[in-house]
């Protein structure tokens, strides 16, 4: 353990126990109110403004945002804030304009609960469910793993215990309350967690400014250390223009492909709720992203000798506040991770039980048996996530980015499905397959990566996926006219 880490286990355990007790109570309360499959997965389209808005941003913002991104920015400087800040205002309005408005309507009219419900119906093919389910298991488990690694980092900094203790502890707690309350438990806890996240971002930022001796002092220190901390592309050249553009598009436009965010539109009770949720969620995202990332920059001037960059935010809180207050606000970061995991865990469980089991394996399965199976599947997926967190194959930010990009490939079948009547199931499946192969090639093979000219691998992957969609759809048979009418006539004028 590094000398820079000064554990204060007693206050940390006390605050965490109180916080987790409250979360457990909410999970139990929600389980008593969860009556059917619709409630379990999407709250039966009854979510109001506060729940919808805060749940959207607290699900999107995660350990990646609160630990991984400031950790990455710690090596870059102000330019690193381009990861989220310039594009944050588009995080909800772009998905809402392009698909959200239609999803609220489709959810109410046809009772869709998940992304698979939509894709299966639109493309008139059960294979879409299977493809999506497999992709979700492949990419969303690492995304949950990234959150749980963050819990390990926090426990290590605050108690001195090995990281695996935090990983296992957080995993068990999330499994328990997701299993009992489903989406209702997840969204109710999201509200508390989201509020705490904003509080943590504000406090961490203020503490980092005070520790650094004010803006003037921080910025002159940064200038003396290395002026690149104050300019693009950043101290380690991380943020050239092409990557600046990539980040703006990545964390706004491509959120449409994330099943756990896509589903949130089905939970909204009407369009008015959707808009108010956009205003609330966008405000929350902008404020938290800006302040927590800025704290990462300020930390460069005042904190050195850290074991790994992911520890920067916990260390700012630990050094700048008394142990109880630091533990209280660190709970906000635990909240960021938990609210993301619970949203994804419920969605992934839905992929296995409803999209693969109920729609493909056992079409006669009743809702009751699916509910029972869901609880077992939640435990199994949770255990795999815990193993992932224990072995830690990369940094929080790297894993999060990889997983996010993988699911983002689904933007192609979603947008084409909504705007192009001639798009077909074989076209959609081929587009996803080509998109994923291209994404992996542009990420892992240096010679291929060069062809992207500094843009994120998702850009060429999406373009290739879209071209494949058009070609294959032209060569294959479109879904029945009745299906097309069901999806397009609702939105025709007059």
């Amino acid at each position: 353990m590094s000398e820079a880490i000064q554990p204060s286990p007693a206050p940390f355990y006390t605050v965490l126990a109180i916080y987790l007790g409250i979360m457990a109570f909410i999970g139990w309360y929600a389980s008593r109110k969860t009556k059917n499959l619709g409630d379990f997965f999407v709250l039966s389209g009854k979510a109001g403004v506060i729940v919808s808005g805060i749940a959207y941003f607290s699900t999107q913002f995660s350990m990646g945002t609160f630990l991984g991104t400031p950790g990455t920015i710690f090596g870059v400087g102000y330019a690193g804030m381009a990861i989220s800040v310039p594009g944050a205002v588009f995080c909800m309005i772009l998905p809402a304009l392009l698909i959200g408005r239609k999803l609220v309507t489709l959810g109410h009219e046809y009772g869709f609960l998940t992304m698979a419900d939509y894709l299966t119906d639109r493309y008139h093919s059960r294979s879409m469910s299977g493809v999506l389910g497999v992709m979700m298991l492949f990419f969303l488990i690492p995304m949950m793993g990234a959150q749980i690694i963050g819990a390990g980092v926090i426990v290590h900094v605050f108690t001195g215990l090995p990281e695996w203790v935090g990983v296992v502890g957080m995993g068990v707690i999330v499994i328990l309350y997701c299993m009992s309350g489903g989406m209702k438990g997840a969204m109710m806890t999201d509200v508390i967690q989201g509020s705490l996240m904003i509080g943590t971002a504000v406090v961490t930022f203020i503490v980092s400014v005070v520790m650094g001796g004010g803006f003037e002092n921080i910025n002159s220190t940064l200038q003396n250390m290395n002026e690149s901390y104050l300019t693009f592309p950043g101290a380690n050249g991380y943020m050239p223009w092409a990557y600046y553009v990539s980040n703006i598009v990545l964390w706004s436009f491509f959120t449409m492909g994330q099943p756990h965010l896509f589903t949130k539109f089905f939970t909204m009770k009407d369009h008015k709720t959707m808009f108010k949720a956009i205003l609330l969620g966008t405000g929350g995202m902008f404020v938290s992203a800006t302040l927590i990332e800025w704290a990462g920059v300020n930390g460069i001037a005042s904190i050195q000798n850290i074991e790994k960059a992911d520890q920067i935010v916990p260390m700012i809180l630990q050094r700048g506040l008394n142990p109880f207050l630091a533990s209280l606000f660190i709970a906000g970061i635990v909240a960021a991770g938990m609210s993301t995991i619970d949203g994804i865990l419920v969605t992934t469980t839905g992929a296995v039980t409803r999209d693969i089991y109920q729609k493909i394996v056992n079409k006669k399965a009743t809702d009751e048996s699916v509910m029972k199976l869901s609880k077992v599947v939640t435990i199994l997926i949770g255990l795999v996530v815990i193993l992932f967190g224990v072995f830690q194959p990369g940094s929080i930010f790297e894993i999060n980015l990889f997983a996010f990009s993988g699911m983002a490939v689904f933007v192609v079948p979603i947008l084409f499905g909504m705007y192009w009547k001639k798009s077909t199931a074989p076209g959609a499946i081929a587009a996803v397959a080509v998109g994923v192969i291209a994404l992996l090639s542009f990420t892992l093979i240096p010679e291929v990566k060069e062809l992207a000219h500094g843009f994120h691998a998702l850009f060429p992957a999406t373009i290739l996926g879209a071209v494949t969609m058009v070609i294959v759809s032209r060569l294959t048979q479109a879904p029945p006219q009745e299906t097309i009418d069901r999806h397009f006539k609702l939105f025709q004028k007059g």
Partner: protein
Amino acid sequence: MKKLFEKHFERTWLVIFLIMFVIIMIPFPFFYSETYIPAIGGIPSYIFGWFVHTAITFALIIVYYRMCMKRKEYHVYDEKNEEVTEGGEE
């Protein structure tokens, strides 16, 4: 202009937001600068460029929301929900 909003409401707003989306990507010195241009407290000026752009976009979202609420297609589910609430939420 009024006709444009009446005839192509969604499309017009989509174009407006896409324009704002593209503007922030243009490497103007107040959005993306490879030289240090200090503003208040020595903070790089592009940080304030992002803030101003965000404020304008956020204001546009509010205007869009208000215009949507004046259109009947955005109130289709209002009544249904009122009925649900009256009968007790659960």
